[in-house]
């Protein structure tokens, strides 16, 4: 615990209030992002990763709503800030990269302008200086002929280039925290590796990163600490080596199995039977009990605590408690 945390999320709850009922997309999530580290959130699609990220920046769209919890950033609770105060933090102190580089850039604005926008907004720099810094940043994220590219419109760039532009845009104000929501999912493998390397370089230069991915392989490559999410809850958390060597939760072990069977070329979908459950109809207890091979009679009945099973390694499973008891 020597390190300071840039971000501390405590008991965060975000729900969608739909006609069919409340969907708890983020359910009592607590996590820490230590300074200068890459922290990962991993889980299947629909488990609430993006909603966690969006809640931190308070970018929820109707009918999504922050229900409770604290988001402690830089000594302040972001849940208590007004929209105006939040706008100052967005892009200046916390910035975010989205999954779809193809659609996340404004199609009718030159990319240079889009990169310098946050600078002009937060630092009130004159146009010329903002442009100079934007070009330098484009260069820093690995865009060749940055000066020339700054004049391009997004459709003139490849997917990898656009994601680099997104990263340049997010980094331009030197934020304390970068949230990257599946930054490589839409890219092909070689480009993905380049972008991940760029992320590592940003971390080595002191940026704290919250990296979201559905892909354990990505998480294994770059993260220092990992949180595994399932149906809106954290089900396991550990240092990356600990998690990969001693995965405790049956869900995490299933995900790991999916990764290794992907490597061996076998069918991947069989590794965890069934699909992510509908968040409207979750059991009162462990949400994974519906698909779990090790499920006992009372697993679905009451919710397991997130308990420490080794130093810095916590897991939410009745069976783990049983084994160590």
């Amino acid at each position, binding site marked *: 615990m020597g390190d300071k945390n840039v971000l501390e999320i405590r008991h965060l709850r975000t729900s969608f209030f739909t006609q069919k009922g409340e969907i708890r997309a983020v359910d009592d999530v607590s996590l820490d992002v230590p300074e200068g580290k890459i922290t990962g959130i991993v889980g299947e699609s629909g488990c609430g990763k993006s909603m966690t990220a969006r809640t931190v920046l308070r970018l929820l769209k109707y009918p999504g709503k922050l229900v409770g919890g604290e988001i402690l950033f830089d000594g302040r609770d972001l849940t208590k800030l007004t929209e105006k105060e939040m706008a100052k933090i967005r892009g200046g102190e916390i910035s975010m990269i*989205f999954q779809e580089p193809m659609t996340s850039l404004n199609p*009718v604005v030159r990319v240079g302008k889009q990169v310098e926008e946050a600078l002009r907004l937060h630092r009130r720099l004159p146009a010329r200086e903002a442009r100079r810094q934007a070009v330098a940043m484009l260069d820093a994220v690995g865009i060749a002929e940055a000066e020339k590219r700054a004049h391009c*419109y997004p459709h003139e760039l490849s997917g990898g280039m656009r994601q680099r532009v997104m990263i340049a845009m997010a980094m331009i104000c030197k934020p304390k925290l970068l949230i990257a929501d599946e930054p490589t999912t839409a890219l092909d493998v070689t480009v993905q590796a380049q972008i991940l390397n760029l992320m590592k370089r940003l971390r080595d230069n002191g940026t704290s990163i919250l990296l979201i991915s559905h892909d354990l392989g990505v998480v294994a490559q770059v993260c220092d600490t990992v949180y595994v999410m399932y149906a809106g809850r954290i089900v396991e958390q550990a240092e990356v080596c600990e998690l990969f060597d001693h995965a405790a939760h049956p869900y995490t072990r299933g995900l790991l199995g999916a990764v290794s069977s992907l490597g061996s070329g076998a069918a991947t979908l069989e590794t965890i039977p069934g699909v992510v459950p509908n968040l409207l109809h979750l059991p009162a207890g462990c949400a994974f009990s519906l698909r779990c091979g090790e499920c006992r009679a009372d697993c679905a009945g009451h919710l397991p605590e997130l308990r420490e099973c080794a130093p810095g390694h916590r897991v939410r499973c009745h069976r783990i408690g049983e084994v160590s008891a």
Partner: protein
Amino acid sequence: MLLNIAKRLAQALLVLLGVALAVFIMLRIIPGNAIITMMGEHADPVIIDRMTEELGLNEPITVQFLRYLKGAVTGDFGTSYSMHRSVSELMGAAFGNTVKLALAAAIFAWLLGIVSGIIAAVRKNGLLDRLFMGVSLLGVSMPVFMTAMLLQYVFAYLLHWVPISRVTDWRGYILPAIALGWNSAGSIARLTRSTLLEVLQADYIDTARAKGRGQLGVLTRHALRNAMLPVLTMMAVQLSSMLSGAVICETIFSINGIGRLAVQAISGRDIPLLQGTILFSTALVILGNFVADSLYAVLDPRIRRGSES
């Protein structure tokens, strides 16, 4: 892109030529002798013959058409039978009034339409949204003559705020402009609202918010730039149709514009004048559509630079 525009321009000219030919033929197969209309029933047959010859009406129709085309290209549309002045001169004078009316109507329609469309989108499903969309539906579905007469009745007859159909100064244009622009305001409001709502769902709007843009900044710097593309196209079409002669509106408010001139040409069996006004209006509509198409290509970088990359 230039090639595209050139292609469209050629297409537009072809359409115009087709319309000219169609109008020319149609006006010659309808019954009634123009000379007799002009000179009266009891004119001297010798004079009628001479007139027919002078106007070239006894020549083959193809020769007549070619001569007409040649004149039209140089701005000479012949002489009005009923007003005894050159058609281009008459149209020039009338067009000035039509331009004033159309500009006033367009500015009214666009300001009202765009502002209420934006407010409706931002306050989606709110009270203002429902109010504006209700009113705009009324705007879209009310015929011009009804709006015109309603406005006249209320503001000129009952309230005496403006003169009834006598355009002496700019105030005379207020009611006609509203009557003519009402429909357009409705369509612009509805289009602005729907495109803006769609744009506001786009991923790059999230990006803009994540950058720290407030609601106003997101709207003006990111959403509107994208949402206005189709609206601008509609605006170009609207302006050209207003310019090409607001027949009903000009007639009701006695504005001496192109539309009213066309009506006078019809009642006077004034073939050169009618031909001129129709051709002129058609040209404006075609021009408007051409501008609208090209506008999109010029304003949207995805189309503008599409051919380069």
